[in-house]
């Protein structure tokens, strides 16, 4: 990592605050594409994203934190799309950048909603970033078939019937995977993280 000049240290630190958050988003996207997980690492993607953001910081015209995170998500989507193309997934994900951006937006707002509503252990409540990290880590460790259903819901908001169509399964089978997936997710989140 290249060290920037003194005048830009504060900017970089300001961007660094979003590292964990972007990491979680990236892990979700990678988890949705298990065939990539041996080749791509979420923290690498986020590192590239933050570097690009820093380099292009002059182009950022917004002011509010929401505008900043939106801009960062755009860059993450572009980075992810590039990586997909590199590993031969471009044909599979046509228009990848746009759809990735939309997926990331949806993913972010759903993670936020989850954060807002999750009241499972108020006494042991960790920081928002840690909780999102725990969730995404748990998602990454789910069995493939269950994770697939959960993430099709999370990233793309597909209906039961649409998921069934895509996976060639009945509605009941998809519902069962989703139910057991959530059960597994709960168990994984209560387990002490192994890493």
């Amino acid at each position, binding site marked *: 990592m290249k060290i920037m000049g003194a005048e830009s240290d504060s900017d970089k630190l300001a961007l660094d605050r979003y590292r964990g*958050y972007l990491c979680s988003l990236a892990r979700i996207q990678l988890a949705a594409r298990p065939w990539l997980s041996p080749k791509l690492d979420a923290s690498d993607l986020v590192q590239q994203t933050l570097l690009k953001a820093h380099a292009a910081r002059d182009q950022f015209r917004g002011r509010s*934190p929401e505008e900043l995170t939106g801009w960062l998500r755009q860059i993450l989507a572009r980075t992810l799309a590039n990586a997909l193309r590199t590993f031969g997934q471009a044909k599979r994900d046509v228009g990848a950048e746009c759809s990735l951006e939309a997926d990331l937006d*949806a993913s972010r*707002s*759903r*993670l*936020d*909603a*989850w*954060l*807002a*509503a*999750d*009241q*499972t252990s*108020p*006494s042991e*409540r960790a*920081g*928002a*970033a840690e909780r*999102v990290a725990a*969730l995404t880590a748990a998602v990454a460790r789910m069995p493939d078939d269950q994770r697939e259903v*959960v993430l099709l*819901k*999370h990233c793309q*908001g597909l*209906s*039961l019937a649409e998921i069934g169509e895509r996976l060639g399964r009945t*509605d*009941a*089978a*998809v*519902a*069962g995977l*989703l*139910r057991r997936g*959530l*059960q597994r*997710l*709960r168990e994984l989140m209560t387990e002490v993280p192994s890493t």
Partner: protein
Amino acid sequence: MNPVESDDLDAITANILRAIERGEVPDAAAWVARHPAHAAELADFFADLDRFGPFLGMGSAAASDETVDYRQSADRAVDVAEGPHGRFGEYELLAEIGRGAMGVVYRARPVGTQMVVALKQVRAAGLDGTDAVQRFREEVLTASGLKHPNIVPIYHVGEQAGRPFYTMALIEGGSLESQLARFRDDPREIARLVAKIARAVHYAHQRQVLHRDLKPGNVVLDESGEPHVADFGLATKLNAAGASEGGPAAGSLPWMAPEAVRGDPTLTTAIDVWALGGILYELLTGKRPFPGETRSDIRHAILESEPIPPRTLVPGLSRDLEAVCLKCLVKDPDKRYESAMALALDLDRWLRDEPVRTRRAGPGERFARMCRRHPALVGGMAALGVLLVAGTLAALSVARAQEERLRGEVCRGNEFAARHVASTILGRLEQLGDPVLTAAGDPELHRACGANDWPAVENFLRMKLHTEAFATVYILDPEGTIRAEWPQRRTVVGQNFRDRDYFLGAVANADRRGRERVHLSRVFTSRNDGLDKLAISAPLRPTGADGPVWVLGATVPTDARLGLTGLHDARRKAVLLAPRDTGVPSQTSDYVILVHEAYSPGERPASLPSVKLHQVDTGFAADEDYADPVAATHPDYAGRWLAGFAPVPGTELVVLVQQRYDEAVAPQGAFLRRLLASVGGAFGLALLLVAGLWLARRRPA
């Protein structure tokens, strides 16, 4: 896991997910209750959905009583950069204790004190418009003006970092919702509790504040069990044009009044009275008055169904308390208690064992309610009913008129038949009378009588007059004393019978000519054998044309049919009547049944039954519902008969022809019975239809 069971569970899960995708909020408890075999798995699933639903982009899935504010954005995101705990202005936030649509409530401590309060702040996402901020301020200001021992007091209204908040007393006992079971089986305690809540609500109403979101979750109990109404969260100035205008009402659906569910812009205190009734109902029965698995089920129940009467769920419950409860839950706001205080007062009355002001609506009132709710149905039924009744009445009156006409015709037909029979009988009587007339004119008899030669008279009677047609033949002197008789019995010879009709009638005919001299007597009881008889008599003057009048008589045998045999047919029965000889030769209405089909040939009753006849212009008539007196000894003749009468000319005999009423008007009767049966059937079907519809409405599947 058993694969069959698994499939089943997955199918249920798919149904739940589809419901959520349709935008419904499934009632977790109801689903779990409906599938007890999977209760644990489904409960876990709902908990997981509740927790991870937002992550899946499905919102919180469990149907909750959480206040839903339709105006607010569904996006419940908060600023993730800010942790919920820690310092908040001059307060230290200790723990989150609850969430509503508009706010999060924390236990909080004013910095530097040992005091603990409840602090409610508006969520970040709720603050995107000035509308929400304005509403928040308004609600707090209105609620902070309320000071009542049963209303949670508000201490401090403020703003911290752009976030409005307020603090209020922290009541540690927990909400009524979590302690519903504590009150079960103690209706008096329930009544006391709800009366207190109602008084507090009334106090707010008097200050133009509607609660708008009353429910067990918004009533907190302190350590001593006193209720405190909390969260006038949606309270708004009664008359202030504002928050509630132009959109559906805010509130918690299961406790919302129908007018609020419909989005009626002018809500009144009646919606709080409704909610108080809902709280009372749930406390009494342990169930909500308008349950449903989905929001649309609940909406439908609130708008269309009557709650199951509490006594149906809790059989021993007081009828009056049930009435009080249901009076709050009447769909029409004007028919509920006019105020929360009125409800409190009625509960007080019940606690004092006095009769309550209201009572369960009678069947009439319930019917009226049903009429108002289903005007088209009831209108249609009413129209159908009116048509049926009118049609029936018309058909009945036509049928009656036809029956009347038919009856008249039958009677006239009988009368005609009777005249025919009468002429036949007249011929028969003339055959009997002629020998008597001839004998009475025989000089041999005159000579024997004139000479008082009784053996010669007897001989004459035996040789010239007596035949099988007559039981006895006899001669009376001008005094009315029987001088000779054949066959000889000598019991009546020498006895005087000057009062007998056969004597007087014959004497009266003494100056007539030809057959007019013959007299047919009224019926008398024979002194010979005690039987009822009639006689044919004729006058004679043995001593010359100006001499005293003697009478020759012949009694007709007791079993004579007088030619009536063969005059009956299957339906018409001919009967011969004769007036009874009372010893007074005047008009009589007492007629003896002389000849009747029921009498066996060769014998007849010792004492003949009689009948009262009225003389009318056309002859005779019997009573309207004439019954044959013979039925007393011959049950075959019981029942009503239609009778026609005809006098036998020149005599006092009357012929009666009778026909059974039922047979004569039988087709008419059958028609009437069929008509009544079909009308009854139609009514029955209509009633079943109404009852079915009503039940279907009451218990939406």
